[in-house]
């Protein structure tokens, strides 16, 4: 389907927030699902780019994505301006299952942060008590922290301490767990972060969901390019129950 770019702006160094509007099944989106975007005419870039849905503004018939420029496809996306048209497939994949009235821990690292925004919003709407840890490389990379704060207690970490606390998002979880007694954990971010997190929370009784990344071709389940632990990241994922994830 075709969506119009209604806004595209750089929100941190090399990180762009793009608003897309048009005819899209906004009501059916689960947080954690993604769209698969055609780059140019598709003759040079034959593979679409998977980007998570970061926010849904159903009343404005708009969805928001946040992406980091890392190569030709995302560079092309960064150059789109208001009024340009994008060919997208979606919403695709399986997102985060929601819960009500629980004590929740959300952990996000870098470009893994965006899909957690729609998640925290929905979890807040469902009356959950939310604690959120967001990690970035340094102050240049930080985005959307204020938006997350509307829905929970947020602690931010940077590798060099140039914004928020210095160090890794995972460094205090073990201690805090004893006090906070979280029942659910949701995470998206680099593999080392997820690995560390999984190790820590394994000692507690908690239900967890991780969002994973894998290189994709079709994005719809036909090519078996994106398989992880024998499941297709584009269909059974990108969100998997933490216990099933082997990192």
């Amino acid at each position, binding site marked *: 389907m075709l969506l119009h770019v209604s806004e595209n702006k750089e929100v941190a160094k090399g990180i762009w927030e793009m608003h897309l509007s048009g005819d899209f099944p906004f009501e059916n989106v689960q947080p954690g699902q993604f769209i698969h975007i055609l780059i140019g005419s598709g*003759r040079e870039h*034959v*593979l679409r780019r998977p980007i998570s849905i970061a926010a849904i503004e159903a009343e404005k018939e708009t969805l928001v994505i946040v992406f980091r420029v890392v190569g030709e496809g995302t560079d092309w996306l960064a150059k789109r301006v208001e009024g340009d048209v994008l060919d997208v497939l979606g919403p695709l994949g399986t997102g985060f299952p929601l819960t009500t009235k629980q004590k929740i821990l959300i952990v996000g690292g870098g470009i893994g942060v965006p899909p957690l925004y729609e998640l925290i919003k929905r979890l807040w709407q469902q009356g959950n008590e939310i604690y959120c840890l967001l990690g970035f490389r340094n102050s240049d990379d930080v985005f959307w922290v204020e938006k997350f704060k509307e829905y929970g207690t947020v602690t931010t970490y940077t590798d060099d301490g140039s914004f928020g606390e210095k160090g890794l998002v995972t460094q205090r979880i073990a201690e805090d767990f004893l006090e906070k007694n979280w029942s659910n954990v949701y995470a998206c971010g680099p593999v080392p972060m997820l690995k560390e997190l999984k190790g820590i929370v394994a000692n507690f009784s908690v239900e967890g969901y991780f969002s994973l990344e*894998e*290189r994709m071709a079709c*994005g*719809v*389940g*036909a*090519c078996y390019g994106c398989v992880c632990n024998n499941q297709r990241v584009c269909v059974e994922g990108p969100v998997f129950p933490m216990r099933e994830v082997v990192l």
Partner: protein
Amino acid sequence: MQVDFAGIKLKNPVMPASGCFGYGKEYAKYYDLSELGAIIVKATTVSPRLGNPTPRVAEVCAGMLNSIGLANPGVDQVVKKELPWLRQFELPIIVNVAGDTVEDYCFVTEKLCQSGLVDAIELNVSCPNVEQGGMAFGVDAGVLAELTTAVKKVCSVPLIVKLSPNVSDIVQIAQAAEAAGADALSLINTLVGMKIDLMSRKPILARGVGGLSGPAIKSVAVRMVYQVYKAVKIPILGVGGITTGLDAIEFIMAGATAVSVGTANFTDPYACPRIIKEIKAYMEKEGIKDLSEIRGCAHVLS
């Protein structure tokens, strides 16, 4: 638009290529599969296979590399679950068969034929993504002839042999398959390629190499169809980089009877029905009533 391909009646000459369309389920959400000329499903082996480690896809300029490695649920599951589901659509079903040994190929072919659910078999002797078998059967004329002869004995439906472009003399290989009893040829499977990640300074694909497909290989595929058309009497299924109806027409002019579409399904899930419409529009514009009017026409001048 109708064509007769090795005795199979096709309502149009367009079918999705093996490995690029699963068993049809995913694309059935986008359109009615009965619009297709036929369907070629994923490579099927004796037992289930998980495939190669990831990353197993990468993009390159005007194409992609894959090293899926024949991930499939095995022939029993295919016969029990996938093919009966596909039968609800009005279209011939072609199953791509792969194996490590001649016995494997015969075993899978026989099981598929006995199920009564397949209209043709496509022998995959050209997969660059497995250690054993696969491409090894497709690069030596003698070995290929032996395999084709053996499979032909247990194959009660038309037998299509899918050739590898990774050979020095495609004509010799094609003729060997024809002489051994192939009813048709499929040209071409992927070319072997590699992409290196400048950050990690290592190949992107976990397996190092992968099969190159997409627009980048079209001219190689057209050339091979052209060369082989002159040298054999059996029909040719053209495949490699077809993205539009005009690409398909080019293959037909080189000598293909039908075409299959792989990578383009990933770029555009509606690629096959769109290509069918584009072929039809071209025929109307050029006043072509039957594709046989232009099949192999590129040869007339030479």
